[in-house]
């Protein structure tokens, strides 16, 4: 099949250190700490308080509006505390529910029947009830994606996993290809699409082979994509497979496409077939800073420190990154729990992350060449320094996907993405006035 290469992008070392480690189930932790705001859109409303007894899979917060999902208890235990903690993504204090595990799982499951017996509306309803969000990291409520207001004919399952180091999607495709395919079929049924693709970067031949084998029974077409960052960006993935460009400011449904991560597809299947709410997820424990390169399934809320104990930190000073090295967030505390969007924990020692101080831009055009969206990061940054936010908007600031390619190649060590994130906040705030 013809694949459309997007212009720009970069080739960081892929460092898939954990690609051959089978997914293991992490043993239970003592305490779980869950941010109430785990999804983009409205955070759910809490249903429990300190002292509440909860069971595994029990709803502890309910959706607040359409673009919101409920949150479920990952274990059977007791809510010991509801406190404020600095949210790693927003940087602001946010509600955290701390649950202490008291014993073996006593499950509260949703009703279940074979996944093929659900009607499209039932699928959407179930996906919402199960609290499923995009597991690639964006955490957008999946049932919203499954309710497009425009005609959708194509479903793309995102198995690109272009972020260096992370291997959980690759392992999921190798170990659970059937569940992913069935999830894909359910997504297609929900949105009324005829065609299902799976996009996988060429550097994962095992996943490609496994998905091809499993997909043929479902009429799912596997597309091998060039290994180039950020191939897994939703818009660039759609372009690669359909040659359609999602319009600036638009959504995939504007070009008749719905994209879901492969792990999300699997979660959907499990919610349908087994009635499991989303209380656990797969993630990669990796980086030069840990001894054991692992792929694990862990309950949402598992403290990062427990995961690191399992992977065995081997360095004195490091960045502990929620996610991968290109877009992940360096943690300031290891006591926070993982959330629905945590696709990995990457521990990078000081010698890898250290970077000299910023120097003057020499307009070397490397950022212009690297930008997959055809922006001019050097110009945007120059405007940012002069606080020209309106001009930045006109230069398509809001189309920036924050992939980090510009900062990755910059010889002047400029942190473009940090600046652009700030500028976007300013533009959004100004726009609201």
């Amino acid at each position: 099949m013809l694949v459309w290469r997007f212009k720009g992008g970069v080739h960081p070392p892929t460092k898939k250190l954990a690609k051959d480690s089978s997914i293991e189930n992490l043993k239970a932790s003592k305490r779980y700490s869950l941010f109430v705001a785990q999804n983009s859109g409205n955070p759910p409303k809490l249903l429990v308080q300190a002292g509440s007894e909860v069971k595994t899979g029990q709803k502890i917060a309910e959706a607040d509006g359409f673009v919101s999902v409920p949150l479920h208890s990952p274990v059977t235990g007791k809510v010991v505390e509801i406190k404020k903690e600095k949210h790693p993504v927003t940087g602001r204090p946010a509600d955290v529910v701390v649950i202490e595990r008291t014993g073996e799982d006593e499950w509260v499951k949703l009703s279940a029947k074979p996944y093929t017996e659900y009607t499209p509306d039932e699928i959407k309803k179930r996906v919402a009830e199960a609290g499923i969000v995009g597991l690639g990291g964006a955490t957008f409520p999946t049932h919203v994606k499954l309710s497009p207001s425009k005609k959708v004919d194509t479903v793309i399952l995102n198995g690109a996993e272009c972020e260096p180091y992370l291997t959980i999607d690759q392992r999921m495709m190798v170990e659970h290809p059937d569940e992913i395919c069935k999830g894909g079929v359910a997504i297609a049924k929900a949105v009324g699409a005829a065609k299902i693709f799976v996009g996988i970067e060429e550097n994962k031949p095992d996943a490609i082979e496994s998905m091809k084998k499993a997909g043929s029974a479902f009429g799912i077409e596997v597309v091998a994509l060039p290994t180039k960052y950020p191939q897994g960006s939703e818009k660039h993935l759609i372009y690669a497979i359909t040659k359609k460009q999602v319009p600036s400011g638009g959504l995939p449904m504007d070009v008749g496409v719905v994209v879901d991560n492969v792990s999300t597809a699997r979660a959907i299947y499990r919610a349908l077939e087994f009635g499991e709410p989303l209380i656990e997820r797969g993630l990669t424990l990796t980086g030069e800073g840990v001894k054991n390169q692992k792929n694990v399934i862990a309950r949402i809320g598992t403290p990062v420190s427990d995961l690191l104990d399992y992977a065995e930190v081997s360095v004195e000073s490091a960045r502990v990154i929620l996610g991968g090295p290109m877009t992940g967030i360096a943690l300031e505390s290891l006591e926070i729990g993982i959330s629905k969007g945590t696709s990995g924990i990457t521990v990078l020692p000081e010698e890898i992350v250290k970077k000299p101080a910023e120097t003057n831009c020499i307009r070397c055009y490397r950022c212009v060449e690297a930008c997959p969206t055809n922006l001019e990061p050097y110009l945007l940054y120059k405007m940012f320094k002069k606080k020209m936010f309106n001009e930045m908007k006109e230069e398509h600031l809001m189309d920036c996907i924050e992939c980090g390619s510009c900062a990755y190649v910059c010889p002047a060590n400029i942190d473009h993405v940090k600046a652009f994130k700030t500028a976007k906040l300013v533009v959004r705030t100004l726009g609201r006035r």
Partner: protein
Amino acid sequence: MKLLTGPAPHIHENISTRRIMLDVLIALTPSAILAVLMWGWYMLLLEIGSMAFAEFLEFFVMRVFRKKKDFVPDLSASVTALLLVFNVPAGISWWTMASGILVAIIIGKEIFGGIGNNPFNPALVGRLFMYISFPVAMITWPQVNWLHFWTPAYDVATTATPLGEAKLHGVAAATQLFHGLTWNSFLGLIPGSAGETSALLLIIGFLYLWWRKIVSYEIPLAYIGTTFVLSALFWFANPSAYYDPVTSILLGGLMLGALFMATDPVTSPVTPLGKWIFGIGAGVITVLIRYIGAYPEGVNFAIILMNALVPFINQFTKRRVFGTVKENG
């Protein structure tokens, strides 16, 4: 474990401004060595002395005037200095050279705010200053004095250059004076500015930079290509009055200008289309000055003029942002 923080991306390509400048110096080294072989120790002194002086000036400005206590030289001053040396006759007096460096670094670069902020190529600003202030010294070329290391270039008998001779006495006279001109100008064994003579070595240096992904090919290709085509037109019209197009692109400062001066990232456009426009414009101006203007060579003026247009070129050659198209297909 000590937790480090910092914004994403957490990994970074192994590249820095200093590394880029070092690569440019490496690319210029073959030509620098050839110049020393042709014009001896004085050439070496000009090269090393100019780079040292330029670095000193920049260091002084940054530490004393800008009070940047942590300033560490990034070698860009050395690149400017070496390019300026390449652009002047080998027998130039040391103080003329020094004044050029002073203007290049201070007027050409520092007063605009240092590296990255200068609208014009600093080396060309320096050369223009020297050309206007010391018109005789700047066209007094020593003969090629191959492998006489201890004879200073200022003691060597002077000569005309192929472009100068053609301007004064016509191409016929020039080709008589310089035997095997095309081939020798490719190799570099002709009189001219110190580092511009050998097209071969300059191309090798450029290919190194291209391989290192420091420069792109658009500007040189557009610039040299345009000069070639326009020179061919003149030559077809009157072969006895003009050099053939191959010789035309090998002579004078074109190779040095197109490969190393016009490609200065700070003073050239950022998009591929912009680079094509920049190169074509420089080629047109160069040929017009050479064949219609008063000067024998026009590379310096051509690039400076195009430098001035860069903000406009950048403005009008923006690429279409991904997703900003009406039709999909």
